[in-house]
């Protein structure tokens, strides 16, 4: 298991000013263990490419509070107040991208496609100053591929080679981000022997995965709970994630 590393080692592959692609929708499919490690580090000026910024105090929300982030690129920052407040206070730059355009731009980044034409956002503020092209009589806007210095993703299972499967809607942006990161670090719940995952069940083949980190959170009652204080948390109903 050459690819298995500790969280502290994982974040040594991230440099100040890097762009990090972070999987997850809400906090489902978010690499919480790795993000916790970043939040307790001195890393700064990071640009996070992620659909949203987790929740207040969870996932990327922690990085926002800890001051690791300079900028966020994503589709939806209005779920909680934490991102809006950071933006209003000038602590965070935000670049808003339609969700489908974000997914496709990341896929293109991983697939060696320089950019693509979509009808999404044509005629809106988000297409202002972007190149347009008429194809077969319809107007499209040009969107550039997105790549990242480091992709931080979450899978449910990895085999020892780094082949990945995901748990239901925790899949979301994780696979495309695995293809679009220069360095790819996956956080997993479980590691199995190579050959234990059927060839057709593998969602992300191992060639995309550089390092594997074990998830320290424990799934309980459908939610991921920090093990250090899980007993207390499950009583109080705080500190849970999901």
């Amino acid at each position: 298991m050459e690819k298995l590393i500790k969280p502290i080692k994982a974040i040594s592959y991230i440099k100040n000013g890097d762009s990090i692609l972070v999987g997850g929708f809400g906090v489902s499919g978010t690499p919480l263990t790795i993000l916790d490690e970043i939040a307790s580090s001195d890393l700064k000026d990071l640009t996070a490419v992620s659909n949203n910024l987790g929740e207040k105090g969870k996932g990327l929300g922690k990085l926002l509070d800890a001051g690791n982030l300079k900028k966020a690129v994503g589709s939806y920052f209005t779920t909680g107040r934490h991102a809006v407040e950071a933006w209003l206070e000038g602590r965070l730059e935000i670049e808003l991208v339609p969700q489908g355009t974000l997914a496709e731009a990341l896929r293109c980044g991983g697939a060696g496609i320089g950019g693509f034409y979509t009808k999404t956002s044509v005629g809106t503020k988000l297409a202002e100053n972007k190149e347009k092209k008429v194809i077969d009589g319809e107007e499209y806007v040009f969107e550039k591929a997105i790549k990242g210095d480091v992709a931080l993703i979450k899978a449910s299972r990895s085999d020892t080679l780094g082949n990945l499967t995901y748990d239901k809607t925790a899949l979301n942006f994780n696979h495309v981000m695995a293809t679009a990161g220069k360095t790819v670090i996956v956080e997993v719940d479980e590691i199995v022997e190579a050959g234990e995952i059927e060839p057709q069940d593998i969602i992300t083949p191992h060639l995309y995965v550089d390092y594997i980190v074990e998830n320290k959170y424990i799934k309980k009652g459908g939610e991921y709970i920090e093990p250090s204080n899980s007993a207390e948390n499950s009583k109080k109903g705080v500190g849970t994630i999901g």
Partner: protein
Amino acid sequence: MSQAIRLKIAKKVSELLVEGNVVNLGIGIPTLIPDCIGDKNVYLQSENGILGMGATPADEETDMDLISANKQPVSLNKGASIFDSADSFSMIRGGHIDLAVLGALQVDETGEIANWAIPGKAILGVGGAMDLVMGAQKIIIATTHLTKDGNPKIVNKLTYPSSGKRKVDMIVTEHALFKFISSKMYLMEVLSDISFEELKQITPASYEISSSFIAS
């Protein structure tokens, strides 16, 4: 706006759903529709990667890795499938969704909508709104007739930022059902005891009464 009114709108839209259709439900009133569908057989698509989304599960079956685009726990119906965000928006943008039911901040008299940003406020969320507006085969707007402050939502011309050039097909409010045909707006049905004059007053958009108009 009372929950009863929101439910009334959701129920009316549910009646309009076509058996066998693939439907994406936006945030706001559309999220109430699953509970109004009954045994009508429609396939709900959720942009975070589900086709065949089912009802809210019992507490003990809740899995926060099986959630809707509203980040609420859901279940899977028989024949449901799971896919990633890129594939999900391929479905949406590629025209494979029969119907999107969306909320709106404003709709103008041509059927253009604004449903993502408020002028002068921080523009920090768009989600899948623009993809759905451009991609769904048909769009129904499910909205209260007026804003919380009593201002009209169905207007002459958008004053809020547009969600895209594509025109919607229908508006359902607590008072009326409007249809758009070739970017012209028609009153199809009155759904409350409102008079024509009162409706006109709270609806700045120009519209005609359809020849197939149905009284409430």
